[in-house]
């Protein structure tokens, strides 16, 4: 079942790449990165480590891909992170605030903030590690 989700996530990354106006070749590389990253995400049993580890893998893969294809790593990072990032939950937080369910909103919002920070921290860590040799 995980493999099917991996394929679906890869397709999403590809379509997101086209949607954000990349070339097809870049979008294919991005879909590979995105699929692998989502597979890691659903394979790790705990939620918080899953976010961190998959974001770490995503950042490393996109740096490697950037070296291979000679394109900035941001492209792969954005395409890959689209499936991972809890953007829907940010929206749900605000929807619950508007509806007056403050407890649910606080619950979702706090969890989302922590998860987003985990993703951002992992990416920042890797880009710091690649710092000097980064493609600019």
């Amino acid at each position, binding site marked *: 079942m995980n493999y099917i989700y991996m394929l679906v996530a890869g397709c999403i990354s590809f379509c997101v790449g086209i949607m954000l106006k990349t070339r097809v070749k*870049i979008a294919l590389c991005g879909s590979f990165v995105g699929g692998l990253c989502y597979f890691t995400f659903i394979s790790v049993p705990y939620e918080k480590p899953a976010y961190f580890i998959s974001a770490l893998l995503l950042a490393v893969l996109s740096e490697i891909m950037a070296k291979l294809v000679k394109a*900035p790593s941001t492209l792969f990072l954005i395409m890959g992170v689209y499936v991972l990032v809890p953007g829907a939950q940010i929206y749900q937080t605000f929807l619950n605030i508007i509806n007056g369910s403050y407890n649910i909103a606080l619950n979702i919002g706090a969890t989302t903030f922590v998860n987003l920070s985990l993703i951002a921290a992992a990416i920042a860590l890797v880009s710091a590690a690649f710092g000097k040799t980064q493609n600019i």
Partner: protein
Amino acid sequence: MKNNIDQLLELLLKAGQILLESGAETYRAETTVAHMYSSLGNGKIDVFALATTITVSIYQDGRHYSFTKRIRKRDIDLNKIEQVNAVSRQISRLELDVSTAMDMLNKIDSKTSQKKPSVIYASGVAAGMFAVLMGGGILDFFMAGLCCSIALFTSTFIKETMVHSFIVRFSGGFLPAFLSTIVHHFTLAGNVEVIALGAMLPLFPGIAMVNAIRDTINGDLVSGVARVAEALISALSLALGALIGFSVGVFL
């Protein structure tokens, strides 16, 4: 010599502006501009980029030169980032002079990189897949794709006629919610929540939020906080639109 410096500043600012308008990170815009200058000029440079402006100041031949540009629109266009990056690489290999590079940047800035239909189809498929990922079935896939394509088509139309991102986001929340309620009402199929969530996929500020936190971690505090505010406001407008959409749909 003076003329030369003016052209050079113009070029650096243009590169930074395209990068920031296409959704690159703040540090990328800053380092790209600094790198380009280090192979074209022989003075000192300082670059200060925010989500809304970029300032370049150069100290060369005993004089200070400075230039600021306002960034008015922010979108994600990965192809432009890649092309500016390629120009910057060519400059650092000393293959380009200032005026040719400027021509290339102008060409990059003026054209849109993908054809509109392919963007809309791709967003439809992505939205459908996202609905499947959230636990939807085959019908949810098609409905989410349809709703998303219609919403994106309308919101690009709105974006061309008026440059107000709040209204674009608001309609981006309103249309998927409204359409998914209508679809659910008429076909009695699928899950409204899943369809609406899938159809809003292109507008969620997840990437903006991650970039904002990354900027803050990197030390670009002002830019990071500005981006957080932008992401929160866009999520709020999306939710407001969705709420109105759901209520109007239920009334019908």
